[in-house]
């Protein structure tokens, strides 16, 4: 709005908004702070906020006791792997649907989205049994394939919307300029699509990193990513709040940072474009 808003109104709004924001964010802040406390301080009553002896012992303990970095690495491999694999399959498909639309294109797209709406529990048993029989249980490969499949609809969808925003005439111009299909994709389409591809990559890495159904049910000790590893803290022994906090902070930090850059992509990817 081009009209002036009174400063006092702005201040009140700011105060309310910041309060709510901080309240919502508080648990995350608390995790972060607690990760630097000793266990005793972590459960102190009255609770201690900032003024205590900060220590990094929890971080080292978590790593020593349970090889935290292996699980971290599992998360990295699975998230990036499933997303990249998905991109390889999705880019040609989205290209085709965006630039050579047919009568059935819309139906195919909708059908792909509908597979995302399948409740995972409906296919839990067959997938579990299939994986067991094929030796894929508790493997990174197995998990990568599953996560790729459940995110494929979103990847295709997001790429499709980004590709549609590329003016068709520019691709036609490249054809008139003598470009073969391969040339067209390499020299014109891909450079123009890179921002869209990056956004899709970002969002789906986040979704894969946080996935908490298949990662919990198809893994045990070897391939367990962070979601499953953290779940093991649900039946701990002894005091563990500070260690839980350290493990949690490390688990969520990467996504916090990535997510900072992904707000627009979140909306586009998760509402399937129904909201602009």
């Amino acid at each position, binding site marked *: *709005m081009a009209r002036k808003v009174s400063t006092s109104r702005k201040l009140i*709004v*700011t105060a*309310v*908004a*910041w309060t*709510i*924001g901080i309240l*919502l*964010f508080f*648990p*995350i802040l*608390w995790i972060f702070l607690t990760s630097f406390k000793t266990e005793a301080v972590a459960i102190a*009553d009255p609770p201690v906020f900032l003024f205590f002896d900060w220590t990094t012992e929890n971080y080292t303990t978590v790593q020593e006791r349970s090889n935290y970095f292996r699980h971290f690495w599992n998360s990295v491999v699975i998230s990036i792997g499933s997303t990249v694999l998905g991109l390889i*399959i999705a880019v*040609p*498909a989205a*290209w*085709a*649907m965006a630039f*050579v639309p*047919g009568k059935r294109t819309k139906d195919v797209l*909708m059908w*792909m*989205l509908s597979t995302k*709406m399948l*409740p*995972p*529990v*409906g*296919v*839990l*048993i*067959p997938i579990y*049994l*299939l994986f067991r029989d094929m030796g894929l249980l508790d493997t990174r490969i197995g998990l990568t394939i599953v996560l790729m*499949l459940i995110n*494929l*609809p979103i990847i295709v969808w997001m790429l499709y919307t980004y590709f549609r925003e590329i003016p068709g005439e520019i691709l036609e111009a490249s054809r008139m300029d003598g470009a073969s299909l391969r040339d067209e994709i390499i020299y014109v389409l891909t450079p123009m699509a890179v921002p869209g591809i990056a956004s899709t990559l970002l969002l789906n890495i986040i979704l894969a*990193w*946080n996935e*908490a159904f298949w990662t*919990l049910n198809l893994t045990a000790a070897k391939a367990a990513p*962070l*979601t499953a590893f*953290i779940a093991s803290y649900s039946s701990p022994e002894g005091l563990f*709040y500070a260690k*839980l906090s350290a493990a*949690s902070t490390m*688990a*969520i930090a990467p*996504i916090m940072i990535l*997510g900072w850059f992904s*707000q627009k992509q*979140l*909306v586009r990817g*998760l*509402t399937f474009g*129904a909201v*602009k």
Partner: protein
Amino acid sequence: MATDHSRTAARIMISPAVILLLAWMIVPLAMTLYFSFLRYNLLMPGMEEWIGFDNYVYFFEDPAFKAAIINTLVLVIGVLLITVVGGTLLALLLDQPMFGQGIVRILTIAPFLVMPTVSALVWKNMFMNPVNGLFAHLFKALGFAPYDFLGNAPLASIVFMVAWMWLPFAALILLTALQSLDQEQIEAAEMDGAGAFARFFYIVVPHLSRAATVVILIETIFLLSVFAEILVTTNGGPGYASTNLTYLVYVQSLLQFDVGAGAAGGVIAIILANIVAIFLMRMIGKNLDA
């Protein structure tokens, strides 16, 4: 712009995605359906036999099933209420001019980015734990006895945790929709003499209702499948107090090894989700043409 050359190329390029998703859908679904008609227990393999709809009957008559359905509904509707109403208010707030808007946005988005297991465990232990949790400390400071949230109100507690995670999602979507509202429409309304409330009800609300519907439908799809939070906090208990349909199927299949019954439950979950999906697809379809 499509010529025959491009059409054939296009079909080839779509095929891998289509084939994979087709396989991903059909094969397991068919298997689940098949298993649901068998008596199949993982502890006694090789003794499967066809029992028709018996699994379904067993499922329906199981008191756990009734509880699970009710809990699923309570969970979904509870979270929806909190997130949509809260999300709308939050979106309206964030749309106002303020200082440091960017930072507030980041603060409010954050819960959605936390993985469900971390979120659930942190709430369970560091906040809701009746001995060491922050809420306990707070209650004591105010002179009340600490409350065992997860013991006494397991479902409500889980609703709370899940809502905390999804509130930013709803707020973000609604905020996006709010900001796409054409300012000129509001200005025209002002010229037509509409006051602030009138503008809100006649212009903003209808505009938002479309986005709110999308939020509701999408959240429902995901909320029907809440799993991790239950697994790491209450394990569905006490009794079946916090078991939803997803968790029940999990228990049947992987803990009790009753594949047949679990499959039947899975089929029911699919049917439920499909009903919601049909509405969602229609909404998306309308937008695809735009």
